């Protein structure tokens, strides 16, 4: 099987020739794995792509989730986050960090409901956060992102890899977007004390997001759309909040995409144990659930096995602190138990950590390639 066939088989809940393996690589671990500093990779996306290709060529894997890694320009326009990055605000050897503060105000919900997130973002919100940009710079930055994405696709084509996930590298769920831009505590206050304003914004953002994701997949001729969510789970909120502010919008997104043959890839950080059963309500095969190592993936398999594809979940701390044998043992356990009858993609929990041990990274990839559990 090719990587593409292997991944799509897992997504369709079929049994591939072996469990596919992917790794979510951001700038810092890429720099670390090729023995350089992150700073230069933040300054030049050509260097970033080169780093990814070097890591891939050294130890090829079924690259899938982020073949177009988020560059500095993607961060500038992607999530609307205030951030400090190495090579810019930090020395070259540091790690990018999000500065969470109350940028979005309570009165902005009405503006979002009226204008939609994209218009609000590009006409107003983006100029409230750092690093600062000017409105007239947006087309140039967007053009740079498009050129970079095209270059990534061309480079992958040379290696016989087709890009399968079809939109910007940063795509936050509307709920997550509001939480990040409003700040966790303030957003939580709004959910309890100002619920209708939040709902109005969420409704509009959801409709807009569906259109954007469908267009993104159409333009890039792909059939998987990626959404990140780190703040909606039962780790934070009770079912009454989850059921009112997250689940209906999520279900709407998945069903609309699925009606056009598009699968939703959920990047779900924090423990989701209390919410996993909700995903059972989605159409069979319509989503991939990527877990970060804090949700019990074996229990998730019990609930969602044969219904949705699971992905994950080698914990970042394991990749940075444990030894090779421990990583191999954990990956073997995942392959035998979560991947036993298909519908599983082995991957990192969240992303590869900046201080990953290279031997652990390779151990994860190689275990997927070489380990075939008995009875398969």
């Amino acid at each position: 099987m090719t990587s593409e066939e292997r991944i799509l088989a897992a997504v369709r809940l079929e049994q591939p020739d072996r469990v596919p393996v992917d790794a979510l690589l951001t700038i810092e671990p890429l720099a670390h794995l090729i023995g350089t500093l992150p700073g230069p990779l933040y300054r030049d996306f050509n260097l970033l792509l080169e780093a990814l290709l070097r890591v891939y060529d050294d130890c090829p894997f079924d690259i899938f989730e982020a073949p177009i890694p988020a560059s500095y320009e993607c961060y500038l326009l992607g999530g609307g986050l205030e951030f400090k990055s190495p090579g810019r605000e930090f020395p070259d050897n540091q790690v990018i960090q999000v500065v969470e503060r109350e940028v979005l105000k309570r009165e902005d919900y009405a503006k979002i409901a009226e204008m939609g997130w994209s218009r609000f973002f590009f006409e107003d919100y983006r100029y409230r956060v750092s690093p600062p940009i000017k409105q007239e710079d947006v087309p140039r930055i967007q053009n740079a992102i498009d050129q970079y994405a095209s270059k990534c696709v061309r480079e992958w084509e040379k290696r016989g890899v087709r890009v399968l996930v079809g939109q910007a590298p940063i795509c936050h769920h509307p709920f997550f977007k509001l939480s990040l831009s409003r700040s966790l505590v303030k957003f939580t206050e709004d959910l309890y004390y100002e619920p209708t304003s939040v709902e109005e914004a969420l409704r509009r953002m959801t409709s807009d997001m569906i259109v954007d994701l469908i267009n993104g997949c159409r333009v890039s001729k792909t059939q998987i759309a990626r959404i990140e969510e780190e703040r909606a789970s039962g780790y934070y909120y009770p079912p009454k909040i989850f059921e009112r502010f997250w689940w209906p919008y999520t279900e709407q997104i998945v069903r609309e995409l699925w009606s056009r043959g598009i699968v939703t890839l959920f990047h779900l950080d924090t423990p989701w144990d209390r919410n996993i059963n909700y995903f059972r309500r989605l159409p069979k095969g319509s989503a991939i659930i990527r877990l970060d190592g804090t949700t019990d993936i074996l229990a998730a398999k019990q609930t969602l096995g044969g219904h949705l594809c699971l992905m994950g979940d080698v914990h970042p701390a394991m990749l940075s602190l444990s030894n090779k044998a421990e990583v191999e043992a954990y990956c073997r356990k995942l392959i035998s138990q979560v991947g036993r009858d298909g519908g599983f993609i082995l991957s990192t929990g969240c992303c590869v950590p900046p201080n990953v041990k290279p031997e652990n990274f390779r151990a994860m990839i190689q275990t997927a390639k070489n380990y075939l559990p008995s009875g398969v």
Partner: protein
Amino acid sequence: MGVATGEYRLSEPLPTLIVELRKDDVERIVRERIGKGDDANKILEECRRGMEIVGRKYEEGEHFLAELMLAGEIFKSIASIVEPYVARAKTPGTLGKAVLATLKGDIHDLGKNIFAIMLKAQGFETYDMGVDVDPADVVEKVKTVRPDFVCFSALMTTVFDNMKQAAQQLGRTGLRSELSLMIGGGATNATVREYVGADFQSLDAMEGVGYCTKKARGRRVA
């Protein structure tokens, strides 16, 4: 397990209002009572009782982190109203002292802030050093404060070495044995606890508060 709400005897207005997260009502009543010259310590104590119930409900799965956060915000707001008056009144004894920090290389503080508020609400004296803190500065702070607990929060795997370094420096100064070292945050797990040499690790702020309370009460009994 699973104590019903009725058993908490929610007859006093302030604890009830806190448990129900009625921020505006709580603030209004506290201002009214302070205005009438009511004892600030008594008001704070009632609010602490409310926070204790919130914490218990969280442990029993009835409340979630969101409710802890909201109750914490209410408590913070009450503290800011009554603290000027508490200073003039008799300060109640604390359960213990805790130094909190997110170490160098990490500027995330959401989890730490929630933990700090809940600890304070339980009656601990907290010294929050903020984010991006040098391990050497923690050691200096420990020398001055002599805390019972030192607590590090981490969202980035890159601060594991700084946590370990802080633990080792505390060991060299002989202060490590006098305190419990706690770590928490999304990047931590049991492997990290072992690596750092910490006594406790959790992703759950209230589990951490429970650990401190149990330790503090144990010490008092001893």
